[in-house]
């Protein structure tokens, strides 16, 4: 008999014991170790993935920041450049304006100086001329000249036009007239003037005689708002006026070249 039933039984028991023992000492520890290792590897891989993702995220964030920084920097630089340009322009404009103002002021000053100089020169010349003329005429004034002047005054009185005569006559009627002369008039002359007045206005005219040295040489009749006279001073005044006008006219054309020279100097 090939089968020994006791051995079969014993082997079944042996086999079952072996199954239990190997489960206990072989399969479970080995499988646990494999599982642990697999878990560890999986964990490490997951960690690596997480780290990679994190790194990627950080890289992205860094790149983003860098880009933002670059943009900000570029914007700031652009702004600064613009501001610098604007500041430069402003300063240039200010400087130009200041230069213009200064130039204009200098020109103005030059012009006014020139004008005042020329005015001073002309007035001085005029004054000198007339002072000389006055002095000469004053020196020349004498009895015969006074006399002659009286005659001229009387003639002028008589040859007045009707309108002037009416105005003066009305004025003399209301108020007494004043006859001014550079020197005391002699009695004959005073009588001749009184007579001429009375005849001219056909009335008894009240007049008063006064001496006024500033008339230079001459006689004038003044009453309420009306005046009639003849004096060298009048001639001189009208002459002075005309000379003054002439000088003013001359100044105008000479002012332009003077301004040109001022600009040329400034440049």
């Amino acid at each position, binding site marked *: 008999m090939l*089968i020994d039933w006791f*051995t*079969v039984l014993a*082997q079944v028991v042996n086999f079952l014991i*072996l199954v239990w023992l*190997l489960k206990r*000492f072989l399969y479970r520890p*080995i499988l*646990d170790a494999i599982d642990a290792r697999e878990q560890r590897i999986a964990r490490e891989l997951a960690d690596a993935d997480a780290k990679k993702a994190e790194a990627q995220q950080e890289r992205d964030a860094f790149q983003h920041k860098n880009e933002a920084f670059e943009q900000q920097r570029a914007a700031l630089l652009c702004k600064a450049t613009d501001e610098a340009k604007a500041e430069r322009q402003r300063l240039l404009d200010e400087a130009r304006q200041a230069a213009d103002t200064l130039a204009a002021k200098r020109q103005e000053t030059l012009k006014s100086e020139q004008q005042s100089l020329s005015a001073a020169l002309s007035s001085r010349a005029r004054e000198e001329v007339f002072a000389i003329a006055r002095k000469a005429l004053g020196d020349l004034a004498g009895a015969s000249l006074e006399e002659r002047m009286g005659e001229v005054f009387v003639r002028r009185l008589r040859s007045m036009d009707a309108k002037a005569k009416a105005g003066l006559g009305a004025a003399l009627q209301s108020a007494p007239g004043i006859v001014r002369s550079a020197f005391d008039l002699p009695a004959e002359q005073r009588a001749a003037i009184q007579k001429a007045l009375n005849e001219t206005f056909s009335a008894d005219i009240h007049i008063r005689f006064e001496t006024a040295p500033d008339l230079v040489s001459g006689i004038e009749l003044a009453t309420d708002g009306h005046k009639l006279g003849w004096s060298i001073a009048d001639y001189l005044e009208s002459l002075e006026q005309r000379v003054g006008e002439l000088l003013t006219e001359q100044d105008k054309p000479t002012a332009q070249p003077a301004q040109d020279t001022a600009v040329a100097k400034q440049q």
Partner: protein
Amino acid sequence: MHLSPDGIIFWQSGFLKINATIAFTWALMLVLVVGSKLVTRKLSRGLERSRWQNLLEIVVSAINGQIAEVGLRRPEKYLGFLGTLFLFVAMASLFTIVPGYEPPTGSLSTTAALAICVFVAVPLFGIEDRGLGGYLREYLKPTVIMLPFNIISELSRTLALAVRLFGNMMSGTMILAILLTITPFIFPIALSALGLLTGMVQAYIFFILATVYIAAATRTRKAAPEAIHAVKAEAKPDAKAEPEHRQ
């Protein structure tokens, strides 16, 4: 010369006895358990590990992979039983290189014991997985007429398991013993190498057939694709087993 190591009796007391089969089985058990204990005593859970641990990991994960490949959904659950079947048969063959050793699998008692274990384990796993009714209903498929044939098939495959392994192991030992008496040089070595190969193949066949039987018993509707795979796997070892059986 003994046909089976059962004949070599070291100690006997009435019904109880210790023969070579039991003694060598114990020796194998000792080697397996002590070896496992030694290696797994200081297991490394990191990436660095000892070569023995590496070897055991390869063996265990290969067995696990094979079970999964046949179509069992939770291979760890069956690893204890099926893995031990393979390791025991394989180690029994491997130790034939030790002089004076008689493989316990060369005894029909051992192979019958292993076949009985499979015979009992298959319905146990089947009932555990799909319930008693579900398991028993399998015998009535495809029709009730098939019930006796299914029962015969169940018994015959158990017998086939036992006899196939016994025949192969015994024949290997016998041929070696005969050759030793005829040509004591060279040939026994070649035959011994061949015997090792046969032993490994037998261990694999025994293991894979047991796995396929369990897979067939625990087959559920949910695991339909796995079942197809399992049927294929069953067909292959059978085809391989037939020529072996004829030896």
